[in-house]
């Protein structure tokens, strides 16, 4: 059963879906669901089995939009979501519907002043080189507004780590898809759009679904590096599903949080509590929907979010799946 989950994740990570351009991800998920999902006005994919309880995962990923083409044919871009300059520089990307390959350029280190060597350039000075010799040539296959994603990469190491750029939140999508395919439980689901630009999709999806309980499936920052100060790891890769009591967007429902912790303990599912108030996700919009929604987040710990090479552990993904399934079972009982 885990093989199917991993296979879905691999296929989801191969798809490109910058915020607002989630079509390929949505089509894939709905195909797996044999068309059971409905697409709303913003592009969310809603699966309604029972109106009161819903699971959420966002389909979009961070990236860029082409905002200008220079005379020499280089692309200047606007970031979509929180992407760091250091993650973009030197990275391989794909541009537009034709997935034209390109790279973020960098002034050679040999030509930098001492000051430039220790500073990062501004995001709005970064450019993408697609190999074209002129603006005319670039514009033959790239238009302003085209989306740019990090190059699709997917490595599953012998040690059980998965490296891929869009694990945030294709990991959540894969888990939610897996649960929908493997249970007849009366739970609803929303695969949302535009989380990375302010949880826009979740806001309208939650409104439409008139919920009492929502469970958000996410990938959350793990800072468990050897040089991280004590108490600043947030969560750790390999230590199981991450339960949040609070982040920058949400104070989570205390009962649901306790329920999930208890179920994890009873069933022997690896789980950990997020140890810093940091980040945010679709819960920020969902819990404030209509007259309020009791909300829980269950996350996969993920290193290097929003970069060309995020890292999760396979066993954490499975823990999140198992815990979600168990929580769903309990809530529906």
């Amino acid at each position, binding site marked *: 059963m885990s093989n199917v989950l991993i296979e879905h994740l691999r296929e989801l990570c191969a798809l490109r879906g910058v915020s607002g351009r989630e079509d390929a991800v949505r089509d894939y998920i709905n195909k797996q669901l044999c068309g059971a999902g409905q697409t709303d006005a913003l592009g969310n994919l809603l699966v309604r089995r029972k109106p009161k309880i819903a699971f959420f995962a966002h389909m979009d990923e961070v990236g860029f939009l082409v905002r200008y083409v220079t005379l020499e044919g280089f692309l200047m871009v606007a970031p979509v979501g929180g992407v760091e300059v250091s993650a973009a520089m030197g990275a391989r990307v794909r541009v537009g519907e034709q997935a034209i*390959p390109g790279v973020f350029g*960098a002034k050679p280190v*040999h030509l930098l002043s001492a000051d430039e060597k220790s*500073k990062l350039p501004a995001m709005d000075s970064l450019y993408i080189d697609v190999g074209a010799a002129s603006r005319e040539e670039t514009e033959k296959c790239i238009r302003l507004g085209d989306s740019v994603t990090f190059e699709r990469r997917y490595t599953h190491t012998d*040690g059980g780590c998965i*490296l891929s750029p869009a694990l945030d939140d294709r990991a959540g999508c894969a888990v939610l898809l897996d649960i929908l395919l493997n249970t007849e439980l009366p739970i609803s689901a929303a695969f949302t759009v535009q989380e990375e630009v302010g949880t826009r999709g979740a806001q309208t999806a939650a409104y439409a679904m008139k919920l009492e309980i929502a469970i958000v499936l996410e990938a959350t920052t793990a*800072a*468990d590096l050897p040089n991280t100060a004590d108490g600043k790891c947030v969560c750790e890769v390999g230590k199981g599903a991450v339960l949040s009591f609070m982040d920058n967007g949400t104070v989570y429902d205390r009962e649901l949080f306790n329920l999930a912790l208890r179920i994890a303990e009873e069933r022997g599912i690896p789980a950990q509590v997020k140890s810093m108030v*940091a980040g945010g996700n679709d819960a920020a919009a969902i819990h404030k929907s209509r007259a309020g929604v009791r909300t829980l987040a269950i996350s996969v710990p993920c290193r290097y979010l929003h970069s060309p090479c995020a890292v999760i552990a396979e066993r954490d993904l499975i823990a999140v799946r198992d815990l979600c399934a168990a929580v769903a079972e309990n809530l529906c009982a």
Partner: protein
Amino acid sequence: MADTSAKALLQALCALPPDGRGAEKLLTPYLGERDTLRTDALASVVWSRAGVGKPILLEAHLDTIAMVVTAVLPGGFLRVQPVGGVDRRPLPAAAVTVWGKETFRGVIAAVPPHLKDKNAPEVPEWTDILVDTGDCGTVVYPGDLMSLDAPLLTLMNGTLTAAGLDNRAGCAAVLRALNATRGCPCPVTAVFAVHEETSGAGALTAAYAADALCAIAVDVSFAACPGVEETESGKLSGGVMLGVSPVLDGALTERLRSLAECEGIPLQTEVMGSRTGTDADKIQTARAGIPTGLLSIPLRNMHTAAEIVSPGDIENTARLLAAFIINN
């Protein structure tokens, strides 16, 4: 016979580890009847084409910038130091290949933005850079090399990008020239030298051993791009860059220029006021001195994973080298 197109050569060359280990095996299928290959004391690969008299020396460095593992930490994290001038700015969250007992994938660890110390430098120091290998167990040891993970990819116009095109592009040009001059009686020694990015020791020692009549070093140089003006660089797809410098032999340089003119090979002139920063500097003073020229292939984003070259520039470099051999 093995595919000798620039792209096929680069595909194979860019898949070699940063120190060029395995190059002798890779090059063997390309040998002609009078050609032999050997790996010298420092691990440079030397291609010798038999003939009468002292050989012409063609040199391209085989090594690329890299990182070397200095410590293996618990949890599969590695400490590293640079081998050559690695640009630290784009390293966080970049994928790497670790050339240990087995080769495997790693990621340069990046500190999440909300955990960054406001007083910490924007660009991490080498002592703060860690490589995340998941859990690599016992297959990696201090001393193992690591390269940026970016295999050859074709962009628009056939433009090529890969990590390590500095100077696998130069190696490809030399190989193309060797292939094009198989029937020519002129003796040639082609050195694919190690250690250019650190000390130049590979070219220094191989040039001593070659005892050549004259030499042409083939490397890459800066191509214009945003932030790098055409006044301080060459142009991608603009042709071979002919080096002019006090340390380069004037007559040999002029000969290369006139050959390019005769053959209709596009040329750009790269003027340097002192040493060239390439292996040409080492070759020039080998033994009692060797008249040395320098040809460079324009390249963008040098010493990052996003190095870019034009195959046309490689081809033109190969043509000029071949013309030099044939007209010797």
